[in-house]
């Protein structure tokens, strides 16, 4: 597959995943409200709450992420190379130049945030800036800017919020089942079992979908970043350096999907479950794909 085909195929798969997520959320909400005998009104309330949570998180996600990861805004004079790379690549994408942030951290990583190109920010660790040469840094920044351009940040924020809300609601449901009274009239045995199964499986499935969307977006950002720099080798060799390096100290699982490389667990297992649960595809696989372009 060439770069254009990869971008197209990744986009198709992502749309399918998001549709699946929406249907899944509606079914889950419906089962819960059936169980509590709330009917369609219950489902409506469920979806409205979802909408409100999503709306609030959507407009504040960039601030939350930047402060969580301890990123500080920097001036052009202090980081001229980083700045001019960000400027050049933004010109190449024809989008507004994002705000530039730096994290004081010897580990190597970078991320982009912001709901659209007009409100975007890009952050890199000092470790990354020291270890990479210009072309490698260009590869990494192009990857991050592609996340912005492809609206991955918006997509991922929404998916994260949806998965999080499902987890909270199912948690609430299970607790009410354990501690709640048994005065419900709709105590149909099969329905209870389905509802419990749904409540247990939903957050797991939601997490898996979230991770799978995230990994798809990584390949897409790799491909479109390479299309922007016209030099896939830059990112490939940057990823090689990054994957050999100790992992980021200043990050939480909540923001893991934002970074250029998974900030946790340096182990490179081919284990099915660890692949399923990771926010990023294995670095080797990404490097291999980049070198095939």
């Amino acid at each position: 597959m060439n770069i254009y085909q990869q971008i197209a195929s990744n986009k198709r798969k992502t749309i399918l995943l998001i549709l699946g997520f929406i249907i899944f959320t509606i079914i889950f909400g419906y089962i819960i409200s059936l169980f509590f005998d709330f009917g369609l009104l219950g489902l409506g309330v469920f979806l409205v709450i979802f909408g409100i949570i999503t709306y609030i998180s959507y407009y504040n996600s960039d601030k939350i992420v930047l402060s969580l990861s301890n990123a500080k805004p920097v001036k052009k004079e202090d980081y001229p190379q980083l700045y001019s790379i960000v400027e050049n690549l933004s010109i190449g994408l024809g989008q507004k130049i994002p705000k530039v942030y730096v994290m004081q951290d010897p580990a190597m990583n970078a991320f982009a945030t912001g709901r659209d190109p007009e409100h975007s920010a890009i952050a890199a660790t000092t470790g990354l800036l020291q270890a990479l040469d210009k072309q490698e840094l260009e590869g990494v920044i192009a990857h991050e800017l592609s996340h912005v351009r492809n609206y991955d940040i918006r997509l991922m924020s929404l998916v994260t919020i949806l998965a999080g809300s499902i987890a909270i609601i199912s948690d609430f449901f299970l607790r009410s089942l354990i501690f709640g009274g048994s005065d419900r009239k709709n105590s149909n045995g099969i329905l209870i079992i389905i509802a419990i199964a749904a409540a247990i499986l939903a957050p797991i499935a939601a997490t898996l979908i979230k991770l799978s969307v995230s990994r798809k977006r990584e390949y897409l950002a790799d491909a479109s970043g390479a299309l922007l720099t016209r030099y896939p080798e830059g990112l490939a060799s940057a990823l090689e350096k990054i994957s050999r390096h100790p992992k980021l100290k200043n990050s939480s699982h909540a923001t893991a999907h934002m970074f250029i490389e998974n900030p946790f667990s340096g182990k490179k297992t081919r284990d099915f479950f660890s692949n399923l649960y990771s926010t990023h595809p294995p670095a080797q696989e990404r490097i291999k794909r980049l070198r095939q372009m």
Partner: protein
Amino acid sequence: MEILIGIAVIALVLVAFVWLTYNQLVTLRERIKEAISSIDVQLKRRLDLIPNLIETVKGYAKHEKQVLENVTNARASLMEAKSPEQKAAANNMLTDTLKSLFAVAESYPDLKASANFSKLQDELTDTEDKISYSRQFYNSNVLSYNTKIKMFPTNLIAGQFNFKEEQFFEAEPSSREPIKVSF
């Protein structure tokens, strides 16, 4: 009656199609205009840096008249260029003359050591990078527009409303004589 409704529906679909396609083509063409203006911004920055560069070089290397004149001429022709094609050609010529200027500068250690000179050199390199990225953005817009107006059925509407193919901003230097570098 049913036939009339049928005809009306078909007519409506056709009008909607022409309307949407026309607007889409206008959007694509406007994007190209925006992209060329971002190239112009970078070209202007490059033009503005050159007089300063020439003054600096003159201070150390008075005798390199020919090289300096070539740069001045290339700059003048870039200022006069109108179409993307002309601009691209003039810009490539300027790149070549600057290359030989920097090659000549190698033999003047005082010039190379000058802080002003190396700052100008850095700024010119940065501007060249920016020109090449804005050219890339422009060309990708031209590519999608040109492809669109040639594809069926858009080509029928493009032909009807006179949407013409746009020129690429070529990066390759045209077939001019290589510039001699005299040390």
